[in-house]
């Protein structure tokens, strides 16, 4: 049973427009959420995170929104650039409460973002 799901395998966006990537989760114990970007032949790179005590976190062009009641998070990229073309993974863990899951991450399947010039 996939506890973190990214239901859109791919997304195509024009340069300068907004990219919105979505992620749903089922485990109500998750309290820390992250987005990673991955280029071919490289490891995932950390982008932005959010804890369950917040509903929004911004870092430059990247904003993550968390809707706990819907168990849904989204990543907004504004404005989108061709260099943003990559696979984006959302991930979740249940450690902020000081539990013993040791930072173990559960990942979604990934969404391929293509930004056209």
């Amino acid at each position: 049973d996939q506890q973190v799901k990214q239901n859109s395998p791919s997304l195509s966006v024009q340069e300068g427009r907004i990219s919105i990537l979505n992620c749903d989760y089922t485990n109500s114990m998750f309290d820390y959420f992250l987005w990673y970007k991955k280029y071919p032949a490289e490891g995932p790179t950390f982008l932005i995170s959010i804890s369950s005590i917040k509903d929004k976190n911004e870092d430059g062009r990247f904003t993550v929104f968390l809707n706990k009641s819907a168990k849904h998070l989204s990543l907004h990229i504004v404005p989108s650039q061709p260099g943003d073309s990559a696979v984006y993974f959302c991930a979740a863990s249940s450690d902020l409460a000081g539990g013993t899951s040791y930072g173990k991450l559960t990942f979604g399947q990934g969404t391929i973002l293509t930004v056209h010039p």
Partner: protein
Amino acid sequence: DAGITQSPRHKVTETGTPVTLRCHQTENHRYMYWYRQDPGHGLRLIHYSYGVKDTDKGEVSDGYSVSRSKTEDFLLTLESATSSQTSVYFCAISPRFNQPQHFGDGTRLSIL
């Protein structure tokens, strides 16, 4: 970039042979993780370590073992490789359990 080196970067081997992948870090981080990436599954946790000689199983640990005899090295061993273990393997490190993990560039393993 976080100082993480995975070796080898590519390996082709035969079914039934033992394989060891190495993750080396220069950050002195306590936490280390092994994931595998497969189409349609994202990344899945194999094993993790929360200190020297402290390891535990992840979501897909069957057929894998790990060892961590010093802070900087985390080894992943396939005792008898099977074709289902063909995958891309990523190591990650983190200074604390509630901070983002940083990943190495992966090992592409093909088992024929």
